[in-house]
């Protein structure tokens, strides 16, 4: 395990050379000046991917026609179907079920469990394995107002403030009201929460909370939640059938109303045999997660391999409106070296303890504790505009995060004590972050917006429910730590429950009265694409990201390349 390459080690000397003077200044509380409010605005508009006008455009079709989103998102919103509706006989049903859940992360699995508890048969269709999702990657914790000095009232205020008051209030009310129920549900499923000996939950503060309500299971809360709910689903295989490596590619509507009635199933695609299947369901829950793997403007991401916005694409064609999808959470300090740590979040705490951001010349270039979006802009500016970033052996660029300053400021051993997980994560690859800095760059972390829903998890299409990162409104334009694991379970459960009530209230009776499945909405959407003059639309949903290097592509000499 080699640590930094000789070339990078050479560059490190400049950081080491300037460090004693920087530490001296930091001791005297002399910091690089923070940006003024005017500068903040300018930096954000010039460098933050959410504000920059380049790399974004207005979508020409669909329910959000005319609104501006990142190019990578618009490409998919304006995409063509993977299937030709004319080739498909919708009267031949391959799978029949009560509820079809699309996506098998935390939200989808929670929806499946609750629907099953309400007496329904469930099919869960998922692109990768059951549990492959952003859920497993959430480390920090899950919020819930369960302590005596706290209540959903305060949790609501915190979440709204964190989202700059742009959240959809009814969703925040549902989120915070149900939080204790979710914690209790997880406890009853045998989740190993961090607890005091008497059973009381450990509760900590998170960024932007006024009460200690962050609950955890070690530093792998999301992974523990996922494996517990998945394990429970596996105990109910008689009612919950999971189809892995079978992503949905189109929703099916029925002909109960002209121009698209209720959602009544989906077309699935077997990634291995390349067959398509027709699933007829009485209700559908869309829970496909976020879009990190679109790599908006080339950013690395913390997201899992399947985060390609599939659900957004399908639901948009079926007429569901999008909310806040132009808003993305970037974390300013994601690791860019070594390769196996790329995208790894380097917690804000590293800067909180005094580490500065340093350019290739060993100089400071920003105040290290600006708000997240501003800090990200400063780093992007230094690398792309000033040309003072550092390039890694595989062509990434970043700046130094000078963690050895922590030892100088707070005493030897502080890094190991305060940042044990990060210390190990780098030590594994020969980098001792108490002695050498890390290389960092902003990383794409969370899709703030998505499908519009109400507090029941209902979309604007009857019979179509949705939950989790694929939806928008719960967090507004900025999400607080610990509210995403909560979001997926609150709205996953609500979707499952409300889908069950919708079915029990009588969708059943409408079958066989001339009501058929239809893909008319897909044909209509393709006509709209043509009419709007969308040239050479890509095929969507994307399903798998593509990382094939150019030298390989150049050798694919076959016809279909």
């Amino acid at each position, binding site marked *: *395990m080699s640590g930094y*390459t000789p070339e990078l080690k050479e560059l490190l000397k400049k950081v080491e050379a300037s460090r004693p003077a920087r530490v001296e200044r930091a001791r005297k509380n002399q910091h690089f000046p923070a940006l003024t409010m005017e500068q903040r605005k300018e930096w954000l508009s010039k460098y933050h991917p959410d504000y920059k006008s380049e790399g974004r455009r207005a979508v020409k079709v669909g329910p959000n026609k005319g609104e501006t989103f990142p190019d990578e998102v618009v490409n998919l919103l304006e995409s063509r179907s993977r299937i030709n509706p004319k080739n498909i006989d919708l009267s031949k049903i391959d799978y029949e079920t009560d509820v079809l859940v699309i996506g098998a992360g935390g939200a989808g699995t929670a929806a499946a469990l609750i629907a099953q508890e309400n007496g329904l048969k469930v099919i869960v269709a998922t692109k990768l394995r059951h549990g*492959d999702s952003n859920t*497993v990657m959430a480390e920090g914790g899950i919020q819930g*107002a*369960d*302590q*005596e000095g706290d*209540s*959903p*009232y305060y949790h609501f205020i*915190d979440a*709204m*403030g964190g989202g700059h*008051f742009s959240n959809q*209030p*009814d969703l925040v009310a549902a989120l*915070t*009201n149900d939080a*204790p129920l979710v*914690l*209790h549900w997880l*406890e009853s*499923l045998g989740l*190993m929460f961090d*607890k005091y000996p*008497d*059973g*009381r939950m450990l509760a900590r503060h998170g960024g932007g909370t*006024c009460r*200690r309500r962050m609950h955890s299971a*070690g530093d792998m809360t999301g*992974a*523990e939640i996922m*494996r*517990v709910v998945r*394990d429970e689903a596996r105990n109910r295989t008689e009612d919950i059938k999971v189809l892995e*490596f079978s992503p949905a590619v189109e929703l099916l509507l029925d002909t109960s109303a002209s121009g698209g009635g209720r959602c009544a199933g989906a077309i699935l695609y077997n*990634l291995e045999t390349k067959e398509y299947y027709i699933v007829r369901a009485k209700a559908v829950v869309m829970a496909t997660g976020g879009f990190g793997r679109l790599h908006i403007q*080339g950013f690395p991401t913390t997201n*899992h*391999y399947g985060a390609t916005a599939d659900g957004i694409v399908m639901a948009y064609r079926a007429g569901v409106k999008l909310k806040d999808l132009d808003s993305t959470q970037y974390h300013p300090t994601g690791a860019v070296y*070594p*390769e196996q740590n790329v*995208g*790894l979040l380097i917690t804000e705490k590293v800067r909180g303890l005094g580490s500065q951001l340093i350019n290739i010349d060993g100089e400071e270039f920003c105040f290290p504790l600006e708000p997240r979006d501003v800090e990200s802009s400063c780093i992007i500016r230094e690398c*792309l*505009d000033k*040309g*003072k*970033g550092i390039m*890694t*052996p*595989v*062509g990434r*660029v970043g700046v130094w995060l000078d963690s050895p300053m922590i030892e100088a400021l707070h005493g030897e051993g502080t890094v190991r004590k305060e940042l044990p997980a990060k210390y190990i994560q780098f030590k594994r690859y020969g980098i001792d972050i108490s002695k050498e800095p890390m290389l960092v*760059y902003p990383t794409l972390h969370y899709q703030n917006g998505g499908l519009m829903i109400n507090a029941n998890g209902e979309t604007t299409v009857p019979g179509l429910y949705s939950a989790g990162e694929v939806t928008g409104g719960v967090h507004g334009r900025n999400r607080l730590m610990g509210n995403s694991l909560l979001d997926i379970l609150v709205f996953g459960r609500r979707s499952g429950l409300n889908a069950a009530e919708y079915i029990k209230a009588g969708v059943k009776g409408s079958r066989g009265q001339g009501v058929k499945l239809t893909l008319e909405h897909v044909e209509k959407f393709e006509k709209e694409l043509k009419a709007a003059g969308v040239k050479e639309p890509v095929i969507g949903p994307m399903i798998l990201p593509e*990382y094939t*290097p150019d030298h*390989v592509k150049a050798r694919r000499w076959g016809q279909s390349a």
Partner: protein
Amino acid sequence: MAKDKKLIKPLATGDKTIPPEGAKMIPIYIMGREYVVPETLTIMKATEYAGYQYMRGCGCRGGICGACGTFYRFLGDYKLKSGLACQTVVQPNMVIAQLPFFPSNRPSYNLEKLVPAGIKQGMENSPHEELRRLYPEVFKCVGCGTCTRTCPMDIDVMDYIALMKRGDLKGAAIKSFDCVMCGLCASRCPAQISQFTAAMFVRRLYGKYVLPAAEHLKKRVEAVKSGKYLKMLDELAKKSTDELKKLYTEREREPDMTEPGKWMPKDVSHL
């Protein structure tokens, strides 16, 4: 952007690797076939650099989902090694095979009915008996330690199996907690044990029946179910942004270091 400056543009976008000129290249063998790839890449990214597109064997790409368990050897070395493809860096002459799926034994059970409520470890042997009923093979462990040597998370798998055999479910649950369920242990076990599924069962038993339940949470759940907070939240949802901003900026912050459950805000009307 300034035009006449020599700018560094990142070459690698997203997860695509584009080595700059002069990058050191090394030979690796993906399922026996030689490819030349840049050093410092992970097995996963090197495989993509070679031209593969993953479908199976790739999940979180961050070392926690367990999709990419991998075995490898070096040319001329008999030792079999293992790791996660997303966390293991390629080295020259590595011969690599991923194990994207391995059949495991996972009997269904009903956690609610398994153990009478209130049973604590040591009072009765019934959790242990359930383990014996569901996973009899656990008790046939030969103690060879291959599972421990194979685990990419450095878990002492053989040790937690030994604790299970002894009935120390708490110990087994805690020692197996970092498991990512990749299944590499099960693939190498001469006693045909699926260690990672047995450990999942034990952790849930422990979480539900051995760890004491949170009493404060139970009380709060009753309050939520009674509808106590609906009116408060409804009123908040109707407030204007300015009213909410005022509430937000005037929030009282709970101190970091107080005795759990003892701190109370000055205004208790919204608890």
